[in-house]
C-alpha cells in the first residue's frame, strides 16, 4: 500500500494547487494555446508510461 499512499499524496497536492497551476498556464504572457501544450505533455508522459509497461503487469 506504500506506493498508493505516495500516489494519493501527489494527487491531493496537484488537486489543491491546480487553480494556481492553471493560472500560471493561462497567464497573459503565454500564448492562448499554452494550457493545451502542457496538457499534451502530460498525455505524452501517460503514453510513455503505458508503452514501457510490462505486458504481464495487470
Amino acid at each position, binding site marked *: *500500500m506504500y506506493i*498508493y499512499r505516495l*500516489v*494519493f499524496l501527489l*494527487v491531493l497536492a*496537484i*488537486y489543491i494547487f*491546480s*487553480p494556481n497551476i*492553471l*493560472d500560471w*498556464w*493561462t*497567464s*497573459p504572457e503565454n*500564448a*492562448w*494555446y499554452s*494550457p*493545451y501544450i502542457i*496538457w*499534451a505533455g*502530460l*498525455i505524452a508522459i*501517460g*503514453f510513455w508510461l*503505458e508503452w514501457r*509497461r*510490462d505486458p*504481464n*503487469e*495487470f
Partner: protein
Amino acid sequence: MNFSAPGLLLASLLYLILLFGIAWITEKGVLPRSWVRHPLVYTLSLGVYAGIWAVYAAVGMAAESGFGFLAYYLGISGAFLLAPVLLNPVMRIGRAYQLTSLADLFAYRYRSQWAGTLVTICSGTAILALLSMQIQAVSTSASLLAPDTSPRLISVLFSITVVLFAMLFGTRRSQGSENHQGLVLAIAFDSLVKLFALLTLGGVILFGVFDGLGGLETWLADRTTPVSSMTMSIDDGSWRALMLMSFAGALVLPHMYHMTFSENPSPKALAKASWGLPLYLLLLGLPVPLILWGGQALAATTGPDFYAIGTAQALGSPALTLLMYIAGLSAASGLMIVSTLALAGMVLNHAVLPLRTPKDQGDIYHWLRWVKRLLIAAIIFAALLFHETLGKNLDLAILGAISLSGMLQLLPGALGVIYWPEGNRRGLIAGLVSGLVIWVVTLVLPFSHTANLLEFLGAPLIPDYSNWHIFTFASLTVNVVVFALVSVLSTSTAEEASAAEACSLGALSRPQRRELLATSSADFVRQLAVPLGISVARREVERALAQLKLPNVEYRPYQLRRLRDRVEVNLSGLLGPAVASDLVKRHLGYKPMASGGTAQDIRYVERALGDYQNRLTGLAGELDNLRRHYRQTLHNLPIPACSVGEDGEILMWNNTMEALTGITADDVVGAKLMALPEHWHLLLDDFNRGEELHRYKHRLDLKGRPHWLNLHKAALSGPDHTEGGSIILVEDQTETRLLEDELMHSERLASVGRLAAGVAHEIGNPVTGISSLAQNLKLETDDPDILSTAEQIQQQTRRISTILQSLMNFARTGNHAHANRYEPVAIRRCVNESINLLSLSDKSMGVHFVNDCPEDLLILGDEQRLVQVFINLLANARDASPIGGEVHISGNLDGYSAIIEVTDEGPGIPTEQLDHIFEPFYTTKAPNKGTGLGLSLVYSIIEEHYGNIQVDSPANADRGRGTCVRLRLPAYEPDAGNTISQNQGS
C-alpha cells in the same frame, strides 16, 4: 438562416437511422471483430462522457470563467492517467464477480442490498438532471435552427428515438457474457462526429474569421478585458468542485462506469484509453476558445452556451450549422442511451428484483429483457417529465452542477471499495444518506425553485449560481466524515470483511473450506430449480461447468465450491450481486460447521496465487518463489506423499504418489479419500483415522502383483498452523522385500554348501578306509569272485570319492584371495583342453564340438578352474545333444567384456526349470548320471572371476530347440611387453 421544421426533423431522423445502421451491421457481424474490439473504438466510446457539454455548455462556461471550463476535462483525464491504481482494480473486481454497475459494486463490497438500492436512487435522481440537460440542449438547438418548431415536439420525438435505440441495442445481452458491440460502435461513431464537427468549426473560425494564428493573436491583443481574452484568473472554489466532480465521474457516472468497465473488451484497451481519452478530450477542448472568440467576433445572436450554432449561423454556412446541430444531437443521444441503459440495469437489479424474484416465468432471460426495456422507457419519460416541469427553466451549467454534485456523493464509497477495507455498510449508508440530504436541501430544492429551506431558516449563506460549489463541498465533507466515523465505531460482519478483502488492492480472497450440502452438480440443478425453474437451473449449472472446464457430472468438494462461486458470479451478471448472493446462499448452502473454525481452502489460494504470479513483485515475489520452491520439493519428493484435511479432503498428492497409484493429482486433489479406488481408499482412510502413526509392510495387491507398503503419518497442526489434517507418506517396500527373499535363498544355499563340505570330509575318511581294505582283500585271495567283488568295491569307492571331490570343490567358493594369482588365460586354449579331456570319455556319442573362439580373446583367471567350467558346460551340452549333434563355442569382445557362448542343439530347458538349474543338487539327468553340482560349480567359479552367466533356452527360437549358455567375463587387454607368449611358453 433558418431551416424548415420537417427538414430538420428529417435530418435528425436520418442521422439516428445511420446510428441504428451502424449498430445493426455490427451486431450482425459484418464488421471484422478486430475492428469492433479495437482499443481505439473503446477509447472513442468513452467520449460519451462529454455529452452536450463538449458542444454547447463548455463554450458557455468559457465565456464566464475563461479556462475554468477545462476542469471538466482535466479531472477525468487525471482519473484515466491514474488508471493503473484507480480504474484497473475496479475493473478486476467487476470482471471477477460480473458487477455491471456501481450499484452492483457497492452491493457486492458492502454486502448490503440497501447500499445498492441507495446508489440506484442517488444515480437515478442525479441522472434525471443530466438527461434533462441533454433534452434541453437538443430542443433549444432545434428551435434555434427552426424557430417555428415546437421544442416540446422535438423533445418527445428525440426521447422516443433514444428509447427505441436503447431497447433494441442495449438489452441484447441476456447472459452477461457478451458486450453490446453494436452500441459501443455507435457511441464511438457519435464521439467521432462530435470531434469532427468541433474541429471543423474551430478550423473555419481560425482561418476564415481570424486569418490564422497571427490574425487571432492580433485580434486578442486588441481585446482589453480579461473576460474577452479568457485570461481572467480561475475561481478556486468552482474550479476545484468541477475538477473533483469530473475526476469522480470516471467511477461514479453510470454511463462512464458502463462504458469503462462493462463494455471493456480487454485490460489492454483500458491501458490505451488511459492516455487515449485525455487526448480525445484535449482535441474536444481545443476549439472551445476559438468558438467563443468567433462568436464574439461575429457577434453571434445566440447566448454563449449555443455559440457553436450561433457562430456557424453567423458564418452563413447552412452545412456547418447543420453539422453543429448533428454534433449536439449525437452527443446528447449517446449520453442518454448509455446512461439510461446503465440506470435501467441498476434499477432492475436493485429495485425490481429484490422485490420480486422471477419464479414461475418459463424463460427468465426473456422476462429480464422485457423488464429492462420497460425500465428504459420509464426512465427516459421520467427525464422528459422532469425536463418539461423543471429542467427547461434552468441553465445548462447549473443542471450539470446539480447532477454531478449528487453523483459525487458516491465517490467516498467507491474509493473505499479499493482503498479502505475498514469501511463498512453502516458507515457507507449513513454517510451517503447525510450527504444526499444536504445535497437535496442545499442544491436540488433551491435551484428547482421548490423550497429554499436555507432562505426560509435565514441561513447566512443562501445557495445561488456563484456559490453552489460551497454546498457541494459541504455535502461531500459531511458524507466522508460520517462514513469514516460510523465505519470506525461500528463492527463489520465477517461476510463483509471477506468481501472487503476480496476487493482491496492486491488482495486474494481466502475462502473457507466448507462442505456443501450438495454432493454433485446434479444436486446443484435440483437445488437451484426451486427458485429458478428446472430449465434455467440446468442451463446455468451447465454453463458454469463448461466455463470451469469440468466434466458434466462433478462430485469433488473443491470443484463443487468453485462451481458454486461460478454460478453465483454468473447469476450476479443476470440478477445483480445482492439477489444472486442471497439466492445462492439460501439454495446452495453449506453443511453446518462441525467445530469452531474451518480450514482455509489451500488449493483455492494456491490457484489464485498461480494466477497472480506475474503481478507479484518485491517481497511478495520472493515469498512466492519460496512457496514454489517448497511446493516443488514436496511434489518431486522421491517418496509418495499426500496430505489430507481434517474432513478427509485430499489437499496434496505428489508426483511419486501419482506414479505409485496411477491416479493423477488433478483427479483427486480436492476430493475426499472416499473418492479413491476402493483398495486405496480402504488403506488410506483406515490409516488416516487410526491411532497408529506407522504401519509396516502392509500388503496391497496392485494389478495382480503384490506390493508391500510402509505407511507413516504426521499431524499437520503446529504452532504456526492450527488447522487439523495430516500428511501421509507411503513407502513402497516391494523391491526391498524381494531382495530380502533373494538374500534368504542365498543364505540357505550357502548353508547347504557348508553342510555338504562337512559331510564330504567326514565321509571321505571311511571311504578311503573301505578302499584300502578292498585293496588288501585283493592281495589276500585268489578267488576270482572275491577279486571281482573287491574290484567293484574299489570302483564304487572311487565313484564316491569323485562325488566328494565335486562337493569339496563346490564348497570352496567365494575365495577371492585366489584373484591375486590370476594370470591371462586364452579362452580358445581352455576350450580345446576341455574338448580333449571330454573326448577321452567313452560317452562322446558322436557329438561334434566346434571351437570358434578367437586366439586373442584373453581373460585374467585361474586356467584349471576355467577348464573345469568348460568341462561342465560342454559335458552338459553333449549329454543334451542328439547323436551326431554339434556343440558350438563362440567368443567375442564386447567393450571390456569377453562374451563366450556355448550353444547346443538339444531339446532346450523348460522355462520352469531355468530358475533352478544353478541350485546345488538340482539335476534333470537320470539317477547316477549327474550329481546336480556341475552348474552350481560353474556359477561359483564364474562369480569368483567377477563374471556372470546367463542361459537362453530355446536358443533357436524358430525351431524351439537348443540352449545357449552365455558367459560374460572381464576381458584382459595385454599391455606392451606383457604378451601371451610368456604364458604359452610356461
